[in-house]
């Protein structure tokens, strides 16, 4: 597996143009995960699956793609460095937590190509891949509003910040678009991993009358699904739902007599990486660009799940409008907040 020579003789190879980087002219790409790991059932996993597909589609050997697992935050920089020394042509950092590390490495290796997912690094040798989560969340909001019977829905975010705010604003807009009298209960778990927090917050939301919860909270969401399933199995009076995030989370919602996953917003990180890797392979590396993937670019998706027919129709319609540019979903940015103050 260590065919690409290791990083020991990096000095000799380093001067070469990026396109000639790999051994035997093999074009290879690699990714460095964030602490969620490559199998996080979220964007790390999506990115890795995309990379594997890319290898397959281009008839390349398995070892042309590789991931570097980060167990802690301290691993980001060394992993990026090892990936650089291992002479991969494009190296992607997955998740906004890798923004600073990518910037550091990209600065030390101006001749090499890097990518960052879910964040932006304004450097000539870095391509930034972002997703219009707000568009997707808008549809989630619509779905929630169209499904709720209690006129109360919930949103559980991981940690407050621009990324999750995008989900939150998209979602509330989507709800309001259908019916602005519907209550949106917004809570943050202050974590992306504390499942118990997810469960307890979901319990409170459901107890308080919400019947659909959209979570944008990583593994915290496991607790949300858990609570919904528990309540359904115990014979809840109302149907309870969860809207999944990043990947199709239908499997998480299964219980003895049904499924609580109403739908999922999907972020096609793999797709974005495929496109970007192909461009780089063709010599058109989009360094310095910040590319937003929305419905128009086929970078995101919304699953149908268990959404009722007429609701789905309305959602489809809105999706169409967004794709065509007829409808613009407000994107939350911190500049707005600052302006407002």
């Amino acid at each position: 597996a260590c065919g690409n020579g290791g990083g020991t003789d990096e000095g000799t190879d380093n001067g070469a143009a990026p396109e000639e980087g790999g051994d035997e002219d093999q074009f290879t790409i690699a990714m460095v995960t964030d602490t969620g790991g490559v199998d996080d059932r979220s964007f790390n996993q999506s990115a890795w699956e995309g990379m594997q597909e890319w290898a397959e589609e281009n008839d390349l050997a398995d070892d042309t793609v590789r991931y570097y697992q980060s167990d802690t935050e301290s691993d980001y920089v060394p992993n990026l460095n090892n990936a650089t020394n291992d002479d991969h042509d494009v190296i992607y950092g997955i998740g906004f937590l890798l923004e600073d590390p990518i910037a550091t490495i990209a600065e030390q290796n101006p001749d090499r190509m890097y990518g960052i997912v879910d964040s932006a690094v304004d450097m000539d040798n870095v391509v930034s891949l972002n997703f219009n989560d707000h568009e997707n969340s808008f549809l989630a909001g619509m779905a929630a509003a169209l499904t709720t019977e209690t006129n109360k829905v919930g949103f559980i975010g991981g940690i407050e910040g621009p990324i999750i705010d995008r989900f939150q604003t998209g979602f509330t807009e989507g709800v309001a678009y259908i019916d602005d009298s519907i209550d949106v209960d917004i809570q943050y778990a202050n974590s992306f991993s504390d499942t118990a927090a997810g469960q307890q917050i979901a319990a409170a939301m459901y107890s308080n009358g919400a019947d659909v919860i959209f979570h944008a909270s990583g593994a915290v969401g496991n607790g949300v699904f858990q609570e919904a399933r528990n309540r359904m199995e115990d014979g809840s009076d109302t149907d309870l739902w969860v809207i999944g995030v990043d990947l199709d989370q239908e499997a998480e919602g299964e219980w003895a007599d049904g499924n609580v996953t109403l739908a999922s917003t999907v972020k096609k990180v793999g797709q974005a990486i495929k496109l970007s890797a192909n461009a780089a392979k063709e010599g058109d590396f989009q360094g310095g660009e910040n590319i937003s993937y929305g419905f128009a670019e086929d970078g995101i998706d919304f699953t149908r799940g268990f959404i009722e027919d007429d609701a789905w129709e309305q959602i489809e319609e809105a999706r169409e409008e967004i794709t065509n540019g007829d409808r613009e979903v407000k994107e939350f940015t911190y500049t707005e907040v600052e302006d407002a103050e």
Partner: protein
Amino acid sequence: MVEVKTDSLLKKLSVPLLAVLFGFLVGAIVMLVFGYNPIDAYSHMIIDVFANPYSIGEALTQATLLVFTGLAFDIANKAGFFNIGLSGQFLIGWLSTIIFALQFPDLPRIALVPLSLIAGTLGGALYAGIAGFLRAYFGTSEVIVTIMLNHTILQISNYLTNFVIGTSSRTEKVSENASLSLEWLTEVTNYSRLNIGFFIAIVAVVVYWFFMKYTTTGFEIKAVGLNPDASRYAGMSDKKNIILSMLISGGLAGLGGAINGLGTFGNLFVLGALPNEGFNGIAVALLGLGNPIGIVLSAFLFGVLNTGASFMSSRAGVPDEMAVIVTASIVFFVGAYYLVEWIFEKIGYRRAQGPHSTETEGGTEQ
């Protein structure tokens, strides 16, 4: 006399050395059971680290931090405390340093670096001091208090990072003037994050060794840890020594955190869990058998294994958790030192008093 000494020195060394050997053996057995090639894995894990100045630098960077938390655990341990709050003290050190450095970005480097490090050290010291104070004056278990303080600081640090001193889950980078990096060191190690902290660690080890061995205060801390009643009788203040040792312990952990903040990252971000350096520091101190040199060596070993773990997984295909299995086994065998003694006995060494034998020894009477 001299003979007895060398005999026990050999024995002392044999414990950690054999523990390391057994630890690797256990790892190898597990790998064989699951169909991996241990020789291939170990050669990537160890040799690859040394084959590359960058990874040597990274291993040393990690070792630097572990030296601090290892010493921190050790001094509390000698004074009779189980400081399980190293992670929290490490984190508050990191936090305070970053806050300070962000607050005064324009101070000249010669002032900003030491002042920021002092801020971190003080942060850690005072935080651990809470546990020391409560123990000294109220008899409150330092184990519970430090566990609680760990969780508290994790929440506070994440909150501050998110909403007060930073946005979007992290703070800004500190200014150039607060950087711990040394150009030549960075260059020699191919852009590794090895920094001035490394030299601070060396100084800390020497000072620590001298302090514990040759100062009256070090003697007091040791005596209080071994028998607080007798120490009080002998005029030592148990309260003072309890608090002092926790202050020093927290200060060392905090300094480690500060160096991590300024040297490794240059900022602070939201953490999903407490920093590993705290818990690993316990293991480092234990493997080092409470000896400063031992702590340095075991910190280095841990640094190498941690750094090498990623080579093992990416180049030999063995899950990097193998490195953890090896270190855990090493710690286990250090604990089970009697196994080593037993082996010595079998191969004909004279039995000597074990380092941990205590008054509960059956049938022994004074």
